[in-house]
């Protein structure tokens, strides 16, 4: 069923230029000594978003999160949360809570005391604290575990206690530092959905830091890809994957085949790129902001390429190249082929295994044609 268009706009405030951002990060820079951990980052995050900061280690994503929590002060720039300047406000005075990567559960308190800690700091009446703790315990499905100490819980249970504790004060903004990092794969997948469900139920704005692209893709409403202290790209998961804005983003998310080429035809409705690396022309069926003779890069995802034994139709005399199957890894749902092109370049191609135990499938050392559509790849200039 297709999404109703007005609903889509409602749930995507970043597409609405009039929408007021909930968190405003303006030209924030953080230097440790001479090193720029975060460099001139500007970012708007909207209410009820689940925003993922994605990047490798040392990309500055955690430093940015710590500045939002108040543990680090920006060297320059401002941070606004819900219309208030928070740049120099102490962490204990911010309407923000954080879930730590190590969970940071207080080892000398039991689960209930851990969750109640923030509420006690607010001097809430005893009865109300008890009610709130019980409510949170049932939210994270740990009602029977209130009297346990953190060391008597499993990793997944600890993660849920940490989440409940961070949610206890009903923060406007919840920061999560690698929330699923310490869980094993199966538990991570289950918890991912639970996290999204809780976020949607409570309507709290989440900012999640992660290095796991799969996690970011499945959790986020939007992703901010960080590289060396700067934001490389901000966009919805599909934008990031299908329309990367640079070679870095294309290479960082998923796997990609990258080829260098020269523009030989630059028309409003199509572009032709000659690529010696691929040994063929690349025909792009839409206009690109480039100039003739410009050197640029073309990036295509492995699943966008099709393999065949027979030469396919070739109306534009482009987008077809030949090679030899060098390597196959069978992953069950799909197979990954490594094709050695006549030009010496290797292409990575994935094909879905739609037929069970197909005896006729392409195999090792077979000569094959690789083809793709005019819209299959991204043309990148940086």
């Amino acid at each position, binding site marked *: 069923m297709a999404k109703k268009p007005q609903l889509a706009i409602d749930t995507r405030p970043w597409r609405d230029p009039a929408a007021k951002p909930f968190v405003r990060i303006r030209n924030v820079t953080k230097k440790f000594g001479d090193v720029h951990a975060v460099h001139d980052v500007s970012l708007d995050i909207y209410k009820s978003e689940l925003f993922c900061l994605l990047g490798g280690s040392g990309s500055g994503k955690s430093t940015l999160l710590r500045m939002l929590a108040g543990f680090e002060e920006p060297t320059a720039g401002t941070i606004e949360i819900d219309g208030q300047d928070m740049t120099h406000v102490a962490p204990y005075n911010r309407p923000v809570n954080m879930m730590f*990567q190590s969970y940071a559960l207080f080892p000398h308190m039991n689960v209930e005391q851990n969750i109640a800690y923030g509420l006690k700091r607010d001097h809430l009446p005893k009865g109300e604290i008890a009610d709130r703790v019980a409510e949170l315990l049932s939210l994270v499905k740990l009602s029977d575990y209130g009297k346990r100490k953190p060391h008597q819980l499993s990793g997944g249970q600890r993660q849920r206690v940490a989440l409940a504790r961070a949610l206890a004060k009903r923060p406007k903004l919840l920061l999560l530092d690698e929330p699923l990092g310490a869980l094993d794969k199966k538990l991570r997948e289950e918890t991912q959905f639970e996290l999204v469900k809780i976020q949607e139920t409570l309507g709290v704005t989440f900012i999640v830091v992660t290095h796991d692209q799969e996690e970011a893709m499945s959790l986020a409403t939007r992703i901010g890809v960080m590289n060396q202290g700067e934001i490389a790209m901000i966009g919805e998961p599909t934008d990031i994957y299908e329309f990367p804005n640079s070679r870095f983003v294309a290479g960082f998310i998923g796997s990609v085949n990258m080829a260098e080429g020269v523009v030989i035809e630059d028309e409003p409705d199509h572009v032709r790129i000659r690529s010696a690396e691929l040994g063929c022309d690349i025909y792009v069926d839409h206009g690109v902001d480039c100039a003739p003779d410009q050197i640029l890069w073309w990036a295509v995802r492995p699943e966008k390429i099709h393999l065949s034994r027979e030469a396919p139709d070739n109306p534009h005399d482009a987008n077809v190249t030949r090679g030899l199957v060098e390597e196959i890894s069978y992953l069950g749902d799909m197979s990954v082929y490594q094709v050695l092109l006549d030009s010496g370049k290797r292409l990575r191609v994935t094909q879905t295994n739609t037929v069970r135990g197909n005896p006729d499938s392409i195999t090792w050392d077979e000569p094959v044609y690789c083809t793709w559509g005019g819209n299959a790849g991204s043309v990148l200039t940086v």
Partner: protein
Amino acid sequence: MRRGWFLPVTATLGFAFLYAPIISLVIFSFNESRLVTVWSGFSTKWYGELFADPQMLGAAWLSAQVAFVSATIALVLGTLCAVALVRFKRFRGRTVLAGTVSAPLVMPDVITGLALLLLFVAMEATLGWPAGRGLVTIIIAHSTFCMAYVTVVVQSRLTDLDLSLEEAAMDLGATPVRVFFDITLPIIAPALVSGWLLAFTLSLDDLVIASFVSGPGSSTLPMVIFSKVRLGVSPDVNALATIIIGIVALGVFAATVLQLRSRPKKLRN
């Protein structure tokens, strides 16, 4: 695996080396004879004599007071010092503090004692305080050198403490002072207990420094024992030593039990 003779023999020899002197001391404290090396029958009379000796009891009481007060002062100062060194990475004079805090650990007692004596004399001449030498000067001296030990013990525990625990508490609305009392202190409590016990013991058995900085009428227990033994070993010293060993053993046992209880138990089911 075949059991060899090597391990049991070396273990026995090791224990004998460590504990034979103490055991013989305990046994001879129940000796009837005045001669410390000749056994002539079981008796508790030296314990009776000990409790009738006001000098000995007075010195024991003084030592206990000194040890208690200076261990407590050393605990507070040493903890503050450890927190400053571990938690604050950049402040003026940090390198100097880090380097000098452990100096008393390696400084010969004679030099520490002499230096403190000269300082106290000079202070009395210029400031008029401390007036003379006695309980106060011994406490000051013991606090200074015990503080170094407390700092080292607490520092190692603090270094192991996950910083994000304190950040989490702060994130939940606790001010830094609150964080220290709610989170840091309970978690490092076992280190504080063992630091205090260590300081107490060190103060209790210090002879050299106390000899330098004590005055007339303020002889600590080790000083009294030492001067008595110089005139010939008397069996009531054995009795006193046995009592002290008993107290120390009890203390160590209590500390061990405390440590074991505070350690996280293994994951159940």
